[in-house]
């Protein structure tokens, strides 16, 4: 994107205000932006600062108490069973969710890119869950994985004696003792991951498909002429070219997963022993059910830090890239 070319030599007339005086239109532009900039400054940055301040106070009841607590709220969180479970669940959920979305999304995109008949229909079927809310998704999948019906009806017909109890399962595999909790994969999270994959793998597919469509056919042809088979073309030519798409996918899915809230609320809630709890749910319950504002604020700040670690490098590198153009 190139900036507006403005002649300083006078071949293109500068702007004149109605009174005839010269004004710099870029200042007008800045003024037009100002309300939005001010809103973002206050409602994003100002409020983040405010939440940060609350997280260092003793405001843990309905009555605001601004007395300084230092790191107390944070220390208490990191030592607490529920929050440790939340961190474990977030890590497990994020990894599984992104990995499955990427594999499924990439596979579907590669298949659709072969210009099969019915491509349009398939694509629309894969993407439509994006138009739904996590609440609707959660309400429906909650029934599909309900241990006494849904998937288990099929398993029962197939003669499975002991069908899984899905999100009611409290087992954690392998379940190594670690701090207050057992580290590993809580089995109850798997149905939640499946529901989230259902909702967002179509988006992943759309991203990859757009990436694939951006690769000129000549590149593939050249590789084929050199004697590469379809699989080799995919692995050695196409996949490396899709790396920027993969990065975007990880960033987008990652930030969704780190702050996931509605899907868990609608599908399982915190679960027994907090096997399906996440920081978003804990923050909500601590703040709005328990009136532990300072503690809720501390959870929110930790969520923000996690998301920022993912997002800020991406935003900054994007800005640099644009500046180079």
């Amino acid at each position: 994107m190139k900036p507006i070319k403005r002649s300083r030599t006078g071949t293109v007339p500068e702007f004149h205000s109605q009174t005839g005086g010269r004004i710099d239109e870029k200042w007008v532009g800045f003024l037009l932006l100002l309300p939005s900039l001010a809103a973002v400054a206050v409602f994003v940055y100002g409020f983040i600062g405010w939440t940060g301040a609350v997280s260092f106070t003793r405001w843990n009841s309905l009555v605001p108490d601004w007395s300084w607590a230092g790191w107390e709220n944070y220390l208490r969180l990191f030592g607490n069973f529920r929050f440790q479970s939340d961190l474990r669940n977030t890590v497990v959920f994020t990894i599984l969710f992104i990995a499955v979305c990427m594999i499924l999304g990439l596979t579907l995109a590669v298949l659709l890119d072969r210009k099969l008949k019915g491509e349009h229909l398939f694509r629309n079927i894969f993407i439509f869950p994006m138009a739904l809310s996590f609440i609707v998704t959660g309400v429906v999948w909650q029934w599909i994985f309900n241990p006494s019906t849904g998937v288990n009806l099929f398993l029962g017909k197939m003669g499975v004696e002991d069908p899984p109890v899905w999100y009611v399962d409290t087992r954690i595999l392998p379940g190594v003792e670690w701090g207050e909790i057992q580290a590993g994969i809580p089995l109850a999270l798997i149905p939640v991951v499946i529901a989230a994959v259902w909702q967002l793998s179509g988006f992943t597919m759309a991203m990859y498909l757009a990436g694939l469509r951006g690769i000129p056919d000549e590149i593939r042809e050249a590789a084929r002429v050199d004697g590469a088979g379809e699989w080799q073309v995919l692995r050695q030519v196409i996949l490396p070219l899709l790396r920027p798409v993969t990065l975007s996918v990880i960033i987008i899915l990652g930030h969704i997963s780190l702050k996931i809230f509605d899907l868990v609320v609608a599908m399982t809630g915190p679960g027994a022993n907090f096997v399906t709890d996440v920081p978003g749910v804990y923050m909500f319950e601590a703040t709005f059910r328990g009136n532990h504002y300072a503690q809720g604020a501390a959870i929110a700040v930790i969520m923000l830090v996690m998301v920022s670690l993912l997002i800020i490098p991406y935003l900054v590198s994007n800005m640099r890239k644009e500046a180079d153009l």
Partner: protein
Amino acid sequence: MSLKPGRLASYLTLLLAAIFFLIPVYVMVITSLKGLEEATLDRMWELPASLRWESYAVAWEKLSPHLMNSLYLAVPATIFSALLGSLNGYVLSKWRFKGADSLFTLVLFGMFIPYQSILIPLIQFLQKIQLYNTIPGLILVHVIYGIPITTLIFRNFYAGIPDEILEAAKIDGNGILGIYRRIILPLSVPGFVVVGIWQFTQIWNEFLFAVTLTSSSQHPVMVALQNLSGSQIVQWNIQMAGALLAALPTLLIYILLGRFFIRGLLAGSLKG
């Protein structure tokens, strides 16, 4: 016509995936059309013996005020945030001042934050200006936190309009606002469609603000649906009918205008 084995395998994979994607739709539709005695756990996958609409009547009775709340919320919020995004995107793509890119990056950050991190002061603020637990309050919130994404989409959209057109308009004596009104706005229809669909869908489906900034009668539909399905006494077929009713508006938009929906999806992510 014979299919090559590779093609056949491709079709089979796509078909399996399509079944996976359609299972929840199947469950929702057939269950919502069952009567009370048919909607039992052991007959979940069976088709209804006859089409019964009573669960829709019950779900409608419970959800309709909240569907209206969502409508009163999503329509104005979408319009305001699209207008704001258009203006911002125009300035940021065509009138870039020094430091504009850094400011834009700072604005974009607002799109990724977990809203939990602004929620406590937001509630206090809304209480102070007496918009807590009101639809106008929620509209304000969605317009403000919609600034980053709408600005981003419009900025990328306007980058595709050649600067030469603007130069010509400048020579004719138009200023920044004149060009916006006479040149940019008429060219913006596709941008408004993409942003409009995106914002409407997001706002309609949003849950965190809805559940924390409003209570009971002011709840938008997603909170009402969650309450419906969270209560043990509400029948399963009614929950499914309710889920379908709540999903219908955005689903219809997707079916009718899917092309633009996908563009919005990609616009928000491919070009940060």
